[in-house]
């Protein structure tokens, strides 16, 4: 395949599953249909630091005060502790 601009031969590269043709003369890049979208998608996945945090669960008691800065995140998972031997012991000892 020849470069549509300078007629030099084009070489094919595969980058993350996307096929790219680059001109060996002018270094121009030729993308097939959908390949630009594929590259954009790959780029956004690469640069995104982390998925956004899920919204805070609504509180059962609006008046419930927040835990201190050193507190554990409360999400309801702690209910599993209630049948734990250590939990019962903790509630009843100094």
């Amino acid at each position, binding site marked *: 395949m020849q470069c549509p601009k300078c007629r030099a031969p084009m070489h094919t590269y595969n980058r993350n599953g996307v096929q790219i043709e680059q001109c060996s003369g002018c270094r121009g890049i030729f993308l097939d249909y959908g390949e630009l979208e594929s590259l954009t998608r790959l780029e956004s996945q690469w640069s995104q630091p982390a998925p956004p945090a899920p919204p805070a669960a609504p509180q059962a*008691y609006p008046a419930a005060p927040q835990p*201190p800065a*050193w507190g554990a995140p*409360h999400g309801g998972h702690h209910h599993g502790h209630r049948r734990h031997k*250590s939990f019962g012991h903790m509630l009843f000892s*100094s």
Partner: protein
Amino acid sequence: MTRDLLLPDLTAHARRIAHTRAPACPCASTGTLAHRPDATVVRHADTVAKAHPPDTSPAQLALRLAAAARRPDVFLTPLGPAPAALHGRLVTFWPYGTPVDPDDPDAAPWEAAARLLALLHRAPVAPEGLPAMRGPAKAAHAVTRLRALADAPPAAAPVLRAWAGLPAWARAEAPLPGTGVLCHGDLHLGQLVRLPDGAWRLIDVDDLGVGVPAWDLARPAAWYACGLLPAEEWARFLGAYRAAGGPAVPADGDPWPVLDVPARALTVQTAARMVTKAVGEGRRPDEVEQAVIDACARMSAVPPPEGPEPGK
């Protein structure tokens, strides 16, 4: 050396007092409620006898006993005004009260506990001569025992670091701040008993004294902060305390500026005891214990508030 004799002799004492109170005693429901190095408690029918910790001061225990006797609306009323001596231990006698069922934490009387504390803290003047409440001293004792372990496990480091970050008064290295409110000093669910009429009362006068009332709220606060006590139960406890006019925290708004230091200290105390216990049993901390140790680890990144000391 006298611990072997203590239990049978304490049992005999309880029986004698019970039979004085009720000559037709059915002698039912008798037995040992606790037998630890720091306390032995036995029951004979409706009478309970307690041998206090070996290092208890007779004068201080008498003052604490009298303070409890003056508040029959808050404390279980002791049988008799003064402690007895038995094998080098001080012994007090009490009517039996039904404890909270340890197998049913959902039955915890959070509102009743909060109301009793609010009543106690609202006392206009603490009895003269009453010593300081022993909350910080107990925390310091737990940390001393952790430090004394021959092979400190990795879990000890964050606990000791969190302890070092506390103000001196919370480590029992300086006098307690504040105006001197009457406090229980060691509140947990084992410190509540129900009278035959269904009303709840506080027990255990060993740590009772003048001090920072936020300390009495700080154990449930610490359990909540560690992610172990559900927010609903913490809200029930705090709400009932405020509704009863308890003075330890502001009537509304954020209670943490006053709860933060006591809750940290009690988290460290709990973690220190848990790590010491796990080492004694030759095992690693379990899931609940790790949650308390993790809270200690997070404390170092967030220094305690500089604001006014509680009670000031």
